[in-house]
């Protein structure tokens, strides 16, 4: 006798839960919409060429993309097991111990603040020439920066975060614009045929390559945001990893192509000099030469919106980190409160205050907004993120060793290789920090800026020890984020049962 087994159709409850879930493409779009492509192509890449003088930047994007792809093997495995909007902090807390976790929180807070505040410099420089003629004014960069700071502050507390469609449309336009500019560059080569010298591996074996890698990593910052969507993913085990790899691939190809196209149209031996002369205008000067017409103006407009989108994105990243830690009471509990718009109120206000203070200091000190604010802030922030990536790779291994929850490939081999490669890049970056900043080797900045991360890390460790001694309940909640209320970290594997997380290493 044969019976036919038919699977039950999904219930109303299941369908209702699945309705708002995100697929791979949706998550990738959300992540990429904060990537701000024109900001990188117009701001970071030319400044990187000018500062380091290394033509191998296109290849560096692909190399870093591959390294981060390896990193993501272990990262995505952790995403499934630990749900936290501050992924680096949570993973290190539960992989290497709570003191190091708290150290990573402070490193992340400093790095993302540097990245966000640095953007005010380039925003003021970019928007001034656009809007001053319109209003008939001659306002300095810091006025526009203050205006942007005010708008970001309001958007932050009113929870006008990624309003999905608007930023998605802008991102789409930016990518199209970048591809048009790239095509124009490639079709107007300086040599009879487009040169591929920039992809020669030997181009990376030069002095100062660590600085080049930091610039490349800075361009990738934001890919880790895919972890935030794990709770809302349709199938967290597959959707989030696919979205992450998709984002990495798009970013690597887009930026690698753009950087290469600049070397093609100027000539590989002239790109550093050309970028040095034109700075943040490099992309638009080339567009004016190769395309003409209104293209440079269109580019400037999208550049301004791109920078603004990146500002909002980093602002909200800082707010989320502080909310997550406020929920744990590691920071004062007020940081763990949301306002009536559902925004992390005090985290947002804190970040806005940091931006305001920095702009005022730079304005009063008459400091260079492009190099000393944007580039120094951006690359230092990128160095901080590189540090986080390195430590997180080790944390993945530590977590696997303690919990044995993944395959050897995901838990040890891939993160192990990523750790070694990232550590090598980190060492190179530290050694070349003067090149990264474009300052003399004897400048104190080459020590103080990376040293700032060490200082905050030490503060984090000390703070954790104090918490353990005086407030052990709060210490136990480190790394749990919003789940500190339950005292456990939720696993997203169809929620068959959350595993209890043991205390970190003492």
């Amino acid at each position, binding site marked *: 006798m044969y019976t036919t087994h038919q699977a039950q159709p999904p219930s109303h*409850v*299941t369908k209702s*839960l699945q309705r708002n879930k995100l697929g791979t493409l949706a998550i990738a779009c959300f992540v990429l919409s904060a990537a701000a492509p024109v900001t990188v192509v117009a701001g970071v890449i030319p400044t990187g060429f000018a500062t380091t003088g290394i033509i191998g930047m296109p290849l560096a994007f692909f190399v870093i993309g591959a390294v981060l792809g390896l990193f993501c093997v272990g990262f995505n495995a952790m995403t499934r097991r630990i749900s936290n909007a501050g992924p680096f902090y949570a993973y290190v807390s539960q992989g290497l111990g709570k003191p190091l976790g708290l150290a990573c929180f402070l490193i992340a807070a400093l790095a993302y603040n540097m990245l966000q505040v640095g953007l005010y410099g380039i925003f003021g420089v970019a928007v001034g020439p656009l809007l001053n003629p319109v209003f008939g004014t001659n306002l300095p960069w810091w006025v526009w920066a203050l205006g942007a700071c005010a708008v970001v502050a309001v958007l932050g507390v009113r929870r006008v975060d990624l309003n999905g469609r608007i930023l998605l449309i802008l991102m789409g336009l930016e990518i199209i614009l970048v591809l048009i500019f790239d095509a124009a560059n490639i079709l107007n080569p300086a040599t009879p045929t487009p040169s591929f010298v920039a992809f020669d591996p030997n181009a990376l074996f030069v002095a100062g390559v660590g600085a080049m890698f930091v610039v490349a990593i800075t361009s990738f910052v934001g890919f880790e945001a895919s972890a935030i969507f794990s709770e809302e993913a349709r199938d967290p085990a597959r959707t989030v990893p696919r979205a992450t790899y998709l984002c990495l691939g798009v970013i690597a190809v887009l930026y690698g192509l753009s950087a290469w196209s600049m070397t093609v149209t100027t000539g590989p031996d002239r790109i550093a000099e050309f970028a040095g002369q034109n700075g943040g205008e490099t992309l638009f000067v080339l567009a004016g030469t190769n395309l003409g017409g209104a293209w440079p103006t269109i580019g400037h407009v999208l550049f301004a919106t791109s920078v603004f989108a990146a500002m909002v994105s980093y602002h909200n990243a800082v707010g989320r980190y502080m909310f997550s830690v406020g929920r744990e009471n590691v920071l004062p509990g007020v940081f763990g409160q949301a306002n009536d718009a*559902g925004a992390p109120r005090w985290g947002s206000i804190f970040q806005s205050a940091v931006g305001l203070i920095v702009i005022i200091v730079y304005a009063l000190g008459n400091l260079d907004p492009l190099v000393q604010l944007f580039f120094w802030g951006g690359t230092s922030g990128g160095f901080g993120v590189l540090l986080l990536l390195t430590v997180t790779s080790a944390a993945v291994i530590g977590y696997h060793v303690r919990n044995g929850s993944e395959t050897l490939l995901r838990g040890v081999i891939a993160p192990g290789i990523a750790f070694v490669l990232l550590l090598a890049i980190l060492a190179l970056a530290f050694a070349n920090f003067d090149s990264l900043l474009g300052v003399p080797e004897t400048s104190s900045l080459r020590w103080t800026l990376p040293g700032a991360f060490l200082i905050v890390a030490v503060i984090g460790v000390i703070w954790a020890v104090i918490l353990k001694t005086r407030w052990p309940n709060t210490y136990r909640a480190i790394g749990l984020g*919003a789940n500190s209320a339950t005292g456990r970290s939720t696993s997203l594997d169809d929620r068959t049962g959350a595993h209890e997380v043991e205390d970190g290493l003492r």
Partner: protein
Amino acid sequence: MTGVTPLRCRVHTLRSLTRAVPQAARTLRADPSRALSIAQLNTEGYAVLWASHRLYLADHLWLIGHDEKSGKSRVSETVMGLGLAGCLLGELAFHKKIDLTPDHDVKVLRPESGPERLHNTAPEQVANTLLQQIISEQTRPQGVTNVRDWLAYTSQFAHAWVVDRLLTIDLVEPYEIRPLVRKKTRYRVINSNDTVRHAVQIVGQLRERGPIAHEENAFLAFCDAAGLNRWLLRDDDTPAMRNNLQRQLSLLQWPLSSLVAETKAAIGDAVLAHRT
């Protein structure tokens, strides 16, 4: 947790009173636990029908979570939805219809009693609807059981369900507002005395560190989870009162304590998510 509200049924003579009584009974049919009493005719010949009704956990959270006059929510829509969802599950837990397992799954108690008996003894229709859905999922091989999933699911409908309950007992009334793009319906409290009295009573007990009933303790806990403490405490929002509150919350027992913690965690995750 009871309140009294006058029905909208003013009568002029004894003859019309007899017509009014069945009408009132129809209005009150949804909740058989209500009592109906008729006041005597006053000197002007009016008789006002009074009904005592019961307000549940979710009702009280809704009332404290919205401005009495404007009906505007004091927290975001998502936070309110999750808070109300937690309260609706809390109502079932409080009446021992459901429990939470150590794995934080929702479990129906006394399933061998059969759905008919649970249906008849569920305190109120909204909670009963939710209970039936939980029972239905538990009978499915891949049914939804995790408390976070139930919070997420219930939060989608909780606001509408609770508002329906409040409308049924004439505690709120709808009105429309027209911001820039499209009109919205809000609900304002008809008689805020109930809300104020209840809140004042609880705050008084907190201040005097007196005993607080289990259900009211649960209400305090859900207020805390939804970030509504400052609206509850208002002028009494001092460090000492907050300490009293935390001390009181620590007395909450399983499964409500776990349910409150899961609600708070879900609310935190919702704030952190990009699409709140």
